[in-house]
């Protein structure tokens, strides 16, 4: 095992981790605000990839356009789901919304299967980002570097939005205690729409970014979703910083696992999660309120 291989593998872990971060951020803010695990999140991710395919294959063959449009479209779609579907069930125990999101996932997956077939659709790396870059100590695919840059910029933007703007402040407050927020006279239903929209938009962005390096097919979200639950649990339910750190940790665990013991690479994260929860039941930055 040479140094170059280890470095490359750490970079790969970073890529995987940054996709997890985008998804887990959305999962986490939705969890905080609505108090539910959004099972449809993987389907949002998959829809993002398919939307990018539809735009590049049928409208304008431009990856950059898709990169900008798809998150916006997905955010609108997420907001629409909240207003038409989720909202009707807030009065009922949260199990009902969870079931609803589970059903929504199945409906979206099968709808895509009907429209595009179960085999998946082609998606290539944008022309300007094919090839490798010489980093001095190794050659690395330029698209992957681009992916790291975009995800870290996005994570920063989301963090700035949540910590510096008034709207972000309301969301953070809502994540903490929605009832109190409502008592303070803030229209919480609009905030909820916004939160689901933001989550879906981030998932959509992850979908576009993953499309060139993964097989675009109806079930692509399922594989990532389960890992993302692990990320959210390790990071601490409802904690945004936790999602970022958790995502990067899980990405690196998988990458290092592949180097050390390949057959166990995918299972390792569950062992880590179990061990971690024994030591720290509420995850990295989770708050007591959610568990006790």
């Amino acid at each position: 095992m040479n140094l170059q291989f280890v470095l490359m593998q750490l970079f790969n872990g970073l890529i995987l981790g940054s996709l997890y971060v985008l998804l887990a951020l959305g999962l986490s803010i939705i969890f905080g605000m609505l108090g539910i695990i959004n099972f449809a999140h993987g389907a949002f991710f998959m829809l993002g990839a398919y939307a990018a395919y539809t735009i590049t294959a049928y409208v304008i063959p431009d990856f950059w356009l898709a990169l900008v449009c798809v998150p916006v479209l997905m955010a609108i779609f997420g907001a629409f789901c909240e207003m038409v579907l989720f909202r009707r069930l807030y009065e009922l125990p949260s199990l009902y919304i969870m079931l609803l999101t589970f059903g929504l996932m199945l409906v979206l997956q099968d709808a895509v299967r009907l429209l595009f077939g179960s085999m998946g659709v082609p998606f290539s790396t944008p022309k300007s980002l094919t090839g490798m870059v010489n980093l001095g100590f190794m050659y690395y695919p330029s698209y992957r570097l681009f992916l790291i840059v975009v995800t870290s910029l996005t994570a920063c933007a989301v963090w700035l939005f949540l910590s510096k703007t008034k709207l972000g402040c309301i969301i953070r407050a809502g994540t903490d205690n929605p009832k109190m927020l409502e008592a303070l006279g803030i229209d919480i239903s609009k905030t909820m729409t916004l939160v689901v929209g933001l989550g879906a938009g981030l998932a959509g962005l992850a979908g576009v970014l993953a499309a060139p390096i993964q097989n675009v097919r109806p079930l692509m979200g399922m594989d990532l979703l389960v890992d993302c639950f692990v990320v959210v649990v390790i990071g601490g339910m409802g904690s945004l910083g936790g999602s970022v750190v958790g995502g990067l940790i899980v990405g690196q665990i998988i990458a290092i696992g592949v180097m050390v013991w390949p057959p166990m690479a995918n299972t390792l994260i569950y062992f880590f999660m179990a061990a971690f929860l024994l030591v720290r039941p509420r995850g990295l930055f989770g708050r007591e309120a959610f568990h006790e």
Partner: protein
Amino acid sequence: MERKCYAILTICLLSIAFFLLVNAPAVAEPLKISVLTDMSGPYAGITGANVEAAKMAIADFGGKVLGEPVEFVYRDHMCKPDVANQKAKELYEKEQVDVIFDCPNSAAGLAVANQAKIHKKLFINVGSGTTRLTGPDCNRYTFKWAYNDYMLATAVGLWAAENLGKKWYTITADYAWGHDLLHHFSEALKAKGGTLLGNEMVALGTSDFSPYIIKAMNAKPDVLVLLNAGKDAVNSTKQANEFGLKNKLKIIHALMFIEDIKASGDVFAGDYVTGAWYWKSDNPGSKEFVEKWKKQFNKPPNWMNAATYSAVTQYLKAVERAKTKDALPVVKALEGHEFRDLLANPGKIRAEDHMEVGNAYILKAKQPGEIKEDWDFFEVVGIIPPGKAYQDPKETGCKMEKTE
């Protein structure tokens, strides 16, 4: 006196007629054919249309055999062995079918073969690749059509070792199918005097193949063998392209269909794979079959569909030769039979292990610029005769019982 004679004669004739009527065999049950396949699981995109292929074969045969119309039913096993087992039982017992066709997924195929043995009814497998069906687990009522894992690995393996290079690196999906293929590929390579530089076992459904790709790249092989299928094949090849591997080496795959290429664009361009048939083939009846299929489905058939069509047609012909739909006479009519049809030219159903063998084709995926017609994704670059592509029946480990 004369009148008495007439009376006796009439009584005799009437009683003979009566006996004939009573003892006449009950009106013959029509022949019932069934297809059990994956229509909603992971292979649905490839094998789902086998139902249509069987229907088409029956219609092209005239819809009748031995003067009776042929009935047809199908079931979806969703790629689950337990479901396949249950449905096969139902088909043989409740639906009273005479034969089950297809059944992808090796575990499912083995389960159905066992049901066929219990019920003493035919099972003609197209979809599953395991060599056990015609090896240790063979039985008198089970046949295997068109391909198996040995053929997939050996045909392209022998060809690649001769034409592409003798230094190989393999990336293997870590489950029974992958291990089996790895074994057959290494045997083929050894037979040609090549060396395997290394192998990576990768968990099924891994989304990031880049570490394995980098390891393979550092070993500098002539040929990278990807022993996986479906989304794993797409993911691993996409990532190999990212790292620019195709400028340095050739990639060969274990299993790939025209639908895989359609679904992934130029990812596989320049790669090699074994196929049992290609839709541009000029075997007898092939062009007509493809024309009819294209008219109905707006796309050409894959080789699984063609194999199902061939299997159903050859079965119906065997029923005609046997002059009965009873299982054992039909089995005997199939055993050792040689034929030429759209799939196999020539084809033979080996009596020793019930494997239907034909030529294996080495297919090369075309570059996007070379594709002149939609769906014409492959170029046939080599043909391996059945004697080389399939294991010698003496070595398969099949002990065919002689039920009379």
